């Protein structure tokens, strides 16, 4: 972490370390390899999952291009770097799939999805992801499954209804309520102390 710090506030002059994205925004080239070390695997994993290995390389370059060019718009009070970068990667993946006319394949979905909780073990989570994990733990397994299919697998509501044999309205309400629960918790935590 750099010794460069940012003064926040007007009278208290509270100082905090600059994030890597903020350093990039200030033209600090030394932050580039550090950011790639820390978030390259995340972006690569999102890309491979969302568009497949053959197109992942192009998508990774698009994602990082947006990070470099838009670094000055990053607001650490709204989201951690990991969450911010994930939003960019997901946006770009959706855009990429629209451009090439590719939709996620509907595959056989296992009835149980134990990886949803086991995935949390041993993984360094962004603050928001910890909050999301708390919210997800409150949901029923079928609600977790719908969220996974929508958010991780990138399926549409119609596709989810097809593979799960749930009514479309149920799929929509599971998705909406799950997102609302996480959003509300995030807003509460942000109000209580910031994004981290």
């Amino acid at each position, binding site marked *: 972490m750099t010794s460069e710090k940012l003064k926040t506030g007007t009278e208290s002059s509270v100082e905090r370390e600059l994030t890597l994205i903020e350093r990039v925004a*200030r033209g600090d*080239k030394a932050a580039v390899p550090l950011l790639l070390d820390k978030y390259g695997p995340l972006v690569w*994993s999102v890309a491979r999952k969302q568009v497949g290995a053959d197109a992942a390389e192009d998508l990774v370059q698009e994602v990082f*291009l*947006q990070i*470099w060019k838009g670094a000055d718009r990053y607001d650490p009070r709204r989201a951690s770097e990991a969450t911010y970068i*994930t939003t960019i990667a997901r946006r770009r993946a959706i*855009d990429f799939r629209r451009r090439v006319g590719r939709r996620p394949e509907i595959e056989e979905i296992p009835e149980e999805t134990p990886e949803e909780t086991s*995935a949390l073990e041993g993984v360094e989570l962004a603050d928001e992801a910890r909050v999301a994990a708390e919210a997800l733990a409150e949901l029923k397994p079928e609600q977790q499954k719908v969220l*996974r299919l929508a958010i991780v697998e990138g399926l549409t509501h119609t596709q989810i209804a097809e593979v799960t044999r749930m009514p479309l309205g149920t799929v929509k309400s599971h998705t909406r309520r799950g997102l609302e629960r996480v959003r509300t918790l995030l807003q509460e935590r942000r109000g209580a102390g910031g994004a981290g």
Partner: protein
Amino acid sequence: MSSEDRNRPRAAEPERAPDDDEIAAAAIYLAMTGARDPLPDEVRRRVERQALDIVGPNPK
């Protein structure tokens, strides 16, 4: 935006900051996915070269 797409990121709009739904969806994504595969060396080299053309010593 239709309800169909409420849970999904919108098309790329570089100028727009992520909204609360996108942040919530990203948080769920991070919470639900585990292992991260290393960025292949060749991809990393390309991304780094690209960055060094864009990120400059222009402190604000």
